[in-house]
């Protein structure tokens, strides 16, 4: 019970000012209570557009539902007379009562109260339609607040979207529309954001990217060695990773747009790993074996001016810079014994252990708000049996999100701060999933080969 309470408040923190209605989730138990109710019609397509409406409707519904910030009203509660554009709404008129009876309402077509009243009882309505225009798929999408007294006040979104005339195009416009709707509820749109990850499906571990719903999976590197630990700069334009080059692990930086290698100087070291960009994209942090132990270093974006930040006889990996402050660094260190989560300033000062010493901690990741973190932890489990936890840096109380029998590792926050992507291992297969930051709505994105170490990258503006 208490955990649910904390979780609810954490989600509220994670997504910021989600609740335009001003309702406050704290103090409630049912996480659905207080979420804005929203109805989403089944969109229909004119002519050839209808062929792609199944993909469209599924995508739109899932995007809104998986956001976790809305309460989806089941379609069985909807009125039968469905609007497709604002002019379909016809205000009822008042008919004079017969034989002394009181005047009664004359229905002239779909109206706002059909939706705001029982049994639908929704506050928001998503409707519209698609058609074919110049060989493209056109979407007219609307978001109405149906509790308003008239159509002109009800409209929050009325927008055109274009995509290719196929399932991919219909999914694309659905995601863009959903992104705009979620933005109305304070959520950062995920449209255009990419997930970078490691896949061994070609026989070698290479860096891949995909859309955040698992579509559009693309191979980004072709080193035919072992390439892993991808990370993407805040602007989405560069990605770094480490690769085995002639018996030495090195950091590589590539352009996300052209895929080409960018200059990066590696110091002489047998192992250089776990790169991370500072949010201003001016520096790279990484771990390198310099004096017999892998410690944390910082260098310019091209690898020059390297400085060693930590000097301990222990392994120190996975430096992660706070995206908001640019100066708080989380990292994993074995300096107190087994590997734990630590924090330091970006100049190496004020080193402090964050985790309590239990189990093994790995894969720290910052929420875009710079306040919440996620990590993998074996607390309460056998060594190696990781699960995903999140923690507010203010109170440092961990909350466990996954608890299944496999291993769950490498959590990474979505740009909306409300979702996580992570890897889950069952038997010998490791695949990538997304979920809401309360552990619900988990969705598998990959199936081919083993897919690991996902990072969720901002869309390139």
């Amino acid at each position, binding site marked *: 019970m208490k955990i649910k309470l904390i979780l609810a408040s954490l989600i509220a923190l994670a997504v910021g000012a989600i609740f335009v209605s001003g309702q406050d989730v704290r103090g409630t138990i049912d996480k659905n209570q207080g979420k804005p109710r929203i109805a989403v019609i089944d969109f229909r397509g004119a002519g050839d557009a209808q062929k792609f409406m199944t993909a469209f409707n599924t995508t739109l519904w899932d995007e809104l539902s998986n956001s976790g910030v809305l309460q989806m009203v089941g379609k069985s509660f909807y009125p039968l007379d469905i609007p497709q554009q604002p002019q379909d709404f016809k205000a009822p008129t008042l008919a004079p009562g017969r034989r002394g009876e009181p005047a009664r309402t004359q229905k002239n077509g779909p109206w706002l109260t059909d939706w705001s009243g029982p049994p639908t009882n929704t506050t928001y309505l998503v409707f519209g339609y698609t058609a074919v225009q110049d060989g493209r798929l056109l979407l007219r999408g609307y978001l109405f607040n149906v509790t308003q007294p008239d159509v002109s006040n009800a409209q929050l979104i009325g927008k055109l979207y274009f995509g290719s005339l196929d399932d991919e195009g219909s999914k694309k416009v659905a995601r863009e529309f959903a992104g705009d709707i979620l933005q109305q509820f304070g959520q950062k749109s995920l449209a255009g954001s990419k997930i970078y990850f490691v896949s061994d499906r070609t026989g070698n571990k290479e860096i891949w990217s995909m859309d955040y719903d698992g579509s559009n999976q693309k191979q980004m590197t072709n080193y035919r060695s072992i390439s892993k630990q991808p990370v993407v700069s805040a602007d989405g334009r560069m990605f770094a990773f480490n690769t085995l080059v002639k018996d030495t692990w090195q950091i590589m930086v590539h352009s996300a747009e052209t895929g080409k290698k960018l200059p990066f100087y590696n110091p002489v070291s047998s192992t250089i790993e776990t790169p991370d960009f500072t949010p201003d994209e001016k520096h790279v942090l990484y771990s390198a074996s310099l004096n017999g132990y892998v410690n944390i270093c910082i260098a310019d974006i091209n690898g020059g001016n390297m400085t060693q930040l930590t000097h301990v006889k222990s392994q120190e990996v996975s430096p992660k810079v706070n995206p908001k402050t640019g100066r708080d660094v989380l990292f994993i260190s*074995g300096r107190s014994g087994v590997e734990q989560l630590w924090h330091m300033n970006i100049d190496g000062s004020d080193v402090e252990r964050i985790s309590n010493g239990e189990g093994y901690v*790995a894969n720290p990741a910052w929420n875009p708000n710079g306040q919440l973190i996620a990590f993998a932890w074996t607390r309460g489990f056998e060594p190696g049996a990781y699960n995903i936890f999140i923690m507010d840096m203010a109170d440092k109380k961990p909350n466990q999100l996954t608890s299944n029998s496999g291993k769950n590792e490498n959590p990474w926050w979505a740009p909306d701060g409300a979702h996580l992507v992570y890897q889950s291992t069952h038997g010998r297969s490791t695949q990538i999933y997304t979920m809401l930051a309360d552990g619900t709505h988990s969705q598998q994105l990959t199936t081919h080969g083993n897919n690991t170490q996902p990072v969720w990258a901002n869309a390139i503006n």
Partner: protein
Amino acid sequence: MRNLSRTLSAAVFAAVLISAAGCKKKVPIPSTPPPPAPAAAPTDNTPAAPLSVRINSFTGEPRSIERGQAATLRWSVGNSTDISIDQGLGAVAANGSRQVFPSQTTTYTLTAKGGGNPDTRSVTIEVSSSVPPPPARTTGEVIPSGEILGREAQDVYFDYDKNDIRADGRDTLTKDADVIKRILAADPTFTIVVEGHCDERGSEEYNLALGDRRALAVKEFLVQLGVPGDRLKTISFGKERPVCTDENEACYQRNRRGHLAPAQ
């Protein structure tokens, strides 16, 4: 033909004689011819052998060989035309040499005959019977150093999340150091990579760092034992290359290892 006609004419003559005797009653039988004069017995003073047989030299080189090797007999004999060596070599010239391949210690005797008393001389070739065993491969073929390393160097094992060389690891590395030193001495361009490996528990990133530390610990130990450090590189594979994938301690232990491999 001439002998035959002579025999025939003799037979005819004999027949005539017999018939004549038959006809002439008493013909005396001729007496048997006298035996030849006995041969004169040889004496030291025989003037017929004015120069005596003399063996100037008879040698065998080398005097001792291993079975299968050759020795050369050389000789020089004066005043003789009847010279021979035993052991199946037979008649030889007055001056000469001959290669022999005795399979055991053998005495060769040279005998020279001639006008006077025969002369003999002997030489013995010692043959070693305890021949050392042949090399593993036929001579001329070089075994790659990496193959020797792979066959003879042993993996060293670590405790969970540790990089200390254990007691059993010290024994293993002491033997490995001898193997490495032998290989490096024989193959001046050969370089070895010390690989650090981890079990599948722990994160990929942390294990890569731990494997780096394990490889360095192995290298440091080998250098202490006299292996030249500039011939040893290190690399961590973390948990990228397990030798087994079972989820039990026996398999985890096999994967927590330092491994020696040829550099690329």
